[in-house]
């Protein structure tokens, strides 16, 4: 087969023209819109994937935050409980102390009152005894005073017996 003889210049020109027109038309009406749409779609998919990834990360952050807040709250509650317990113990202790002090005071006062009463009672008794003694002495004296000697004897004997406190 003779290749050079088979080569048809006319066909070559027709092919060149058709191919050129086809390239121009296809670029304008097909390849450009197709490739642009493909790119747009791929970008869209990429963006959506990125957004999903970001959302996931945010969610994780949120979860971590929640966890942290929960832990903080728990720690705070524990602290508060501990404080309350301490307060309670200290309050009880103070109350006890105060009660003790009050009781001591009351006892002291009572003791003092008792002492004073006792003193008063002793004084009263003394007075009464003195009175009674005087009365007795009066009666005795009246009886005895008839005899002068006897009177004197009596006084002396009485005085002997009675010892003053």
């Amino acid at each position, binding site marked *: 087969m003779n290749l050079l003889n088979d080569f048809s210049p*006319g*066909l070559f020109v027709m092919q*060149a023209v058709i191919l050129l027109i086809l390239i121009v038309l296809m670029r304008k*009406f097909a390849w450009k819109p197709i490739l642009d749409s493909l790119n747009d779609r791929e970008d869209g998919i990429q963006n959506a994937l990125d957004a999903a990834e970001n959302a996931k990360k945010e969610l994780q952050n949120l979860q971590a935050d929640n966890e942290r807040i929960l832990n903080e709250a728990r720690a705070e509650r524990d602290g508060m409980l501990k404080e309350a317990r301490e307060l309670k113990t200290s309050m009880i202790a103070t109350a006890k102390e105060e009660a003790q002090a009050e009781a001591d005071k009351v006892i002291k006062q009572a003791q003092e009152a008792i002492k004073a009463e006792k003193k008063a009672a002793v004084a009263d008794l003394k007075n009464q005894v003195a009175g009674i003694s005087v009365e007795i002495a009066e009666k005795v004296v009246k009886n005895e005073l008839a005899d002068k000697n006897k009177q004197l004897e009596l006084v002396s004997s009485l005085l002997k017996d009675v010892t003053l406190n």
Partner: protein
Amino acid sequence: MIAQQLRKCLVTLVFSLVSIAMFSSNENTTLPAQHANEHGQHNTTESHSSGGGLIDTKPEIDAYKKHHLADSHDFSLFSYTDSHGKRKHVGFSLPVIVWSSKGLVTFMSSEFHHNDDGSVIVTKNGAKFAKIHSKIYELDAGATAVKLDNDHHATNAHKVWDFSITKSVLGMLIAGLLMLLLFGGLAKGYKKGPIPTGFSRVLEPLVIYVRDEIARPNIGEKKYRKYMGFLLTVFFFIWILNLLGLTPFGFNVTGNIAVTVCLAIFTFLITTFTANKDYWKHIFWMPGVPVPMKIVLMPIEILGMFTKPFSLLIRLFANITAGHAVVMGLIAVAYTARETLGLAGGFGVSTLLTLFISLIELLVAFLQAFIFTMLSSLFIGMAVEEHDHDHAHDAEVHGAEDNSIV
């Protein structure tokens, strides 16, 4: 590449089988050629003066094959002899447009009456035309009939610029129209939503395939976009034309040397005119090698500029031509092996072999479109590649390999 080697082996094998079968049969019984068409593709039988248009013997089959592989000025599906012994052609004629000594001349190819040996003369605008072996000749002034020498070359006629809508041009127009319809539809589909529907769903992955598997890795992420228009067009143009060649309409567009030359020249022009400084530097003054080497490498590199697109055009042409030749040869087995295998046997063997090789041709149709686009983008990629001088030499090693790959 492996597939192609395999294919070549198969082709050789099949060819030898065919020739054995052809030699074994020399009889001259006739069968309506119409039968042949029922049988398979590419059997667009046409009348050639003698023998009543029947294709039965080895020389006839060879002539027929040669005729089919060449471009044709009319679109004929098949022909037959009617009860009155007249040859009938089924098909339609195509317009002939030629630039002659009398200017632009147009007429329908039917005026040649399917004649292909120059015996029918068409006179238009004062110029006389004859068709010899699918080529239009204008007769020299004063000549009334074509005189042929022993090699069937016209001695008193010359070729003219033939811009006819030949069968190949028709095929190209159909392919172009199909592409505009299909991919225009795909482009329109994106206006409705981001996901294509219907047949466009099949086309979209193909476009993505060319972009992601051919253009991007070879040209580079930054620059590939500019060349997508050419690469996509060429890929689908070649593929569709290859597939059209496998239909019974018998187009043989990509098996036409003029067509593949044109495609390769496009690649060559794009490569040459978009090439950057680095590319020219690597051709004329290779960096990183001693001066004597630079001088030796220069002519080799300059030659390489042309051998790259040349390999493209020869590869596509040879593969498609060989494919068509093999398919036709296998169909011819039905006639040539009739004596040895019997009528049914001949047809059975022919059908099986043709079916088998047609499946391979289906793969080749894609493969050749892929290889052409792939290598085009590789050449473009080499021309626009930006490289620092550390791995500059690597790129050239790549280039040298490329010529030997397929």
